[in-house]
């Protein structure tokens, strides 16, 4: 354009790097703290450069846990988080894609009411129904179980809507062609529709995996046993109210480990992530 572009570009680069620094600083501090000695941190003497306790702290965090009351190795918490995240992501995609298929490709009594019943759950996030849902899960004896962690979160109006919209854009000729080839509804779904939905499913999976991994309120309520705890709940229990007892290097190592899988997914699958984020918000 008409102005001195060169100078403006330097300003833009500068502002962006300042932004990146602000965004990255808390995580940098966490990584640095996870390599230092607890006594130093507790005294308020923490150095801003990495220390020499990296292996020791991460070994303790992953395989032993804190020395205090909630002695639970973090690898087990990560395993619980992983199972929950995968169940939520895969479960949501599976039940949403088949219900969207039923709603789009069939005519049956109560078709639209069923669609609306699924749609309205958008307005019932777990936060507004915590205790009644807790009671049902307790009555079904699903406390401290993977089913209890994932099932109440597994319905998805967003995913159903997304697949419904996608199926509407699939040309009718495809169905007619496979019908001529003698394919029934299940064959058409499996051989034609599912392969076509692959990108949508992948984009959705990325978002739902992050969502599942980052669940907090629900696992906090329904897990009472330490060995069923997810990493997000575990990290909270590591911070004791009496500050002197908090093992900060272990807490920070846990924070780093808790961030690692979802951040990796965002960075490594950026295209799918952006697509999923934009699609699910439509």
């Amino acid at each position, binding site marked *: 354009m008409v102005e001195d572009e060169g100078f403006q570009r330097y300003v*833009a680069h500068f502002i962006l790097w300042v932004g990146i620094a602000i965004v990255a600083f808390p995580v940098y501090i966490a990584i640095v703290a996870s390599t230092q000695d607890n006594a130093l941190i507790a005294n308020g003497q923490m150095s801003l450069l990495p220390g020499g306790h990296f292996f020791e702290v991460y070994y303790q965090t992953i395989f032993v846990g804190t020395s205090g009351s909630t002695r639970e190795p973090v690898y087990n918490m990560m395993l619980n988080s992983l199972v929950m995240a995968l169940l939520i992501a895969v479960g949501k995609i599976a039940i949403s894609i*088949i219900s969207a298929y039923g709603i789009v490709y069939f005519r049956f009594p109560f078709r639209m009411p069923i669609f609306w019943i699924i749609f309205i759950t958008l307005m019932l996030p777990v936060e507004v129904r915590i*205790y009644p849902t807790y009671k049902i899960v307790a009555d079904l004896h699903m406390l401290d179980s993977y089913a209890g962690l994932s099932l109440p979160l597994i319905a998805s109006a967003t995913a159903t809507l997304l697949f419904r919209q996608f199926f509407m854009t699939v040309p009718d000729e495809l169905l007619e062609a496979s019908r001529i080839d003698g394919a029934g509804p299940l064959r058409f779904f499996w051989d034609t529709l599912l392969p076509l939905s692959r990108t949508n499913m992948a984009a959705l999976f990325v978002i739902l995996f992050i969502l599942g991994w980052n669940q907090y309120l629900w696992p906090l309520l329904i897990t009472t046993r330490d060995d069923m705890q997810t990493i997000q709940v575990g990290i909270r229990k590591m911070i004791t109210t009496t500050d002197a007892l908090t093992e900060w290097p272990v807490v920070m190592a846990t924070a780093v480990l808790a961030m690692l899988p979802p951040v990796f997914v965002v960075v490594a699958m950026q295209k799918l992530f952006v697509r999923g984020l934009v699609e699910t918000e439509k």
Partner: protein
Amino acid sequence: MQKQAIFQSKLLPYALVAPQLAIVLIFFYWPALQAVIQSFLLQDAFGLSSNFVWLDNYVELFRDPAYFEAIVRTFFFSFAIAVSSLSFALLLAVMADKPLRGSMLYRTLLIWPYAVAPPVVGVLWIFMLHPSLGVLARYLRAVGIDWNPLLDGNQAAALIILAAAWKQISYNFLFFLAGLQAIPKSVFEAAAIDGARPMRRFWTVTFPLLSPTIFFLLVVNIVYAFFDTFGIIDTMTRGGPGTSTVTLVYKVYSDGLLGGNLGSSAAQSVILMVMVIVLTGIQFRFVERKVTY
């Protein structure tokens, strides 16, 4: 909208929607219904019997100054988080929208905090700003601020807002950048040829054309501040000191945890439900218009 080419089957469609329908009815509608029913009942101290009390639970709730404070606080938090996060993200997005070398790298380096869970965000920020050992707290004290968010309610609130806004920057940045890239460059060029300086171009061209995105993000940020700040609050302050960081969601959680008044807790849930319905309604009305901007 209906498909013309469809399959004929009596039972299969029901089998296809059954799993989702079962989950939705058991874990969404049944508990929501329970909350509504519960909100009209008053249980005795031992939970043995309950009476139908009409709107007493609601009336009592709105007479309770603590609840009123929580409402005001939640709206204030939402406003502060949305404004601070949106303005910072917009600045970064406008810069990243310029034809710069390495703009993809910038995007990558700015969007990853989306993946950080709220409780982890809370842990990161309380550690940096912890009164006795935080690295940033040192500097605050060095410039003469008596920093102690564990005792000072206003400072605790500021801490929550700061951490929550930090997490939301990446999300807002991504949507602002997409919104900016959807504006045809010729519009800026025309304004530039007319002699509009960059600042003027921003306020008279970019900002109005971006207003659908801004409005959309405003709603999303308010919903975020209402619900997703729970993890941040619970790890940083647990609602304290006193009740100075108790939001509506946190209050439902902590009131229910103490096991006290079931009716009141249910009434609070129902009020939250109404708020979500209103917010989602606004969001959907707007999404229809967004397509045609």
